[in-house]
């Protein structure tokens, strides 16, 4: 007896949206796992780059956006560099991050999305990053005052962090870029 698969019953999950954002076609993946073997963090996470691809292909949905690999990924691009099919997995990870933010997915250990938001905020304001201000805001936002506190006096004493934000940037063009893209995103 022939087995009939109803087209409607096959869920496509989020794979198409990933392709739309990243411009990357992950369906050429051979599952050779060179990405996973070279990945510096796959030994420390529950998932790996090749697994993320397979899950997407099998129709994984928004639940994938909660997985910590998305934020544990360091964007080192070892995966992309060694991929025989030249899949830019680092770019796929970026697309998953964008989607995680869009859907309000679970915040990972260390709350990288908050760190990103704060640092981008300093760029929008000053035209350049302001590490010390960002660190203070991040610590307040994550209530992690004690973590790395021994580092602060040390780097201050060594002059290895700027006390005040930089004033030299062309703030006008940076603000213009941020405002333009915020508007474009709303459209």
């Amino acid at each position: 007896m022939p087995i009939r698969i109803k087209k409607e019953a096959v869920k496509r999950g989020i794979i198409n949206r990933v392709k739309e954002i990243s411009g990357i076609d992950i369906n050429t993946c051979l599952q050779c796992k060179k990405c996973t073997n070279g990945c510096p963090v796959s030994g420390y996470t529950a998932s790996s780059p090749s697994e993320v691809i397979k899950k997407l292909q099998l129709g994984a949905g928004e639940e994938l956006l909660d997985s910590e690999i998305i934020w544990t990924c360091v964007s080192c691009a070892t995966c992309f560099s060694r991929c025989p099919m030249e899949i830019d997995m680092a770019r796929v990870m970026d697309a998953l991050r964008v989607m995680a933010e869009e859907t309000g997915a679970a915040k990972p250990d260390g709350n990288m999305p908050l760190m990103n938001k704060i640092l981008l905020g300093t760029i929008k304001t000053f035209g350049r990053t302001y590490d010390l201000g960002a660190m203070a805001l991040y610590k307040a936002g994550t209530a992690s005052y004690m973590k790395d506190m021994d580092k602060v006096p040390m780097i201050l004493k060594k002059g290895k962090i700027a006390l005040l934000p930089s004033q030299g940037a062309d703030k006008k063009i940076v603000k213009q870029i941020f405002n333009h893209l915020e508007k474009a995103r709303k459209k």
Partner: protein
Amino acid sequence: MKYAYFPGCSAESTARDLYLSTLTVAPALGIEFVEPAGWSCCGTTMAHQVDHDLSVSLAAANLLKVKDMGLEMVVSCASCYSRMKIANHEISTNLKTREKTAAALGRDYDGSVKVRHFVEIIIEDMGLAAFKKALKHSLSGLKVASYYGCLLVRPPEIASFDDPENPVYMDRLINAMGGVGLDWPHKVECCGGSLTLTRSDLVVKLSETIIAMAKDSGAQCMAVACPMCQINLDMRQDDILKATGHRYNMPILYITQLMGLCLGMSEQALGLNKLIISPQETLNFIR
């Protein structure tokens, strides 16, 4: 040799020592640097994690400034180097990205400004023979593990820096300075980079793997060219000690600091006082 020099945000903060040593070394090698007025952040890791168009536009704003100067752009931070090259690649290969960037900047940019790393211009433009001639002192056999990290070499088609799996540019400089550039396996492993504050537990593990391998390979110090690599490997040795009991005491110097020492520059001028693990044992080799 005249170039536009893009310092990058860390030059004013966590990598002040890289900035100071680069600007001290350059004129001694006959290299003239002009900073683009009003340079701004390249967008680094957070921009591309949040909005791809933002990351391209932030980098392109600076590339456009350099295009107006009619010079090549020299960068010493690996992250800036990577973002500038990726922006150039995206803009010159994807018309849609070029149009979006032009809309954000209010001006068209064609992706044509050549982006180089400081190490590249010494080897490719100046040449090792001329570099050697400028030196006053020698590293006298100092064994150095050159650590290139991620963003200088990857992705190779875009970065096109030396060899992506076994780069030797810094090693060639070290050998020219009378040191021994070690052949070791972790040259392009990742130190954990931007996870430095959010997942310091991972950075400690990744950094230890790298430092331990350098030590096993006989390194007496490590040379780096990236601000994130430098601060992770240098600052986290204390945490490695606390977490594992392993004391490495491995000095992590910028390649420009080693060059400056061989050019007879003062420790102050090279920002050596900013290093966390003391470079004293390294300095004893300078003859």
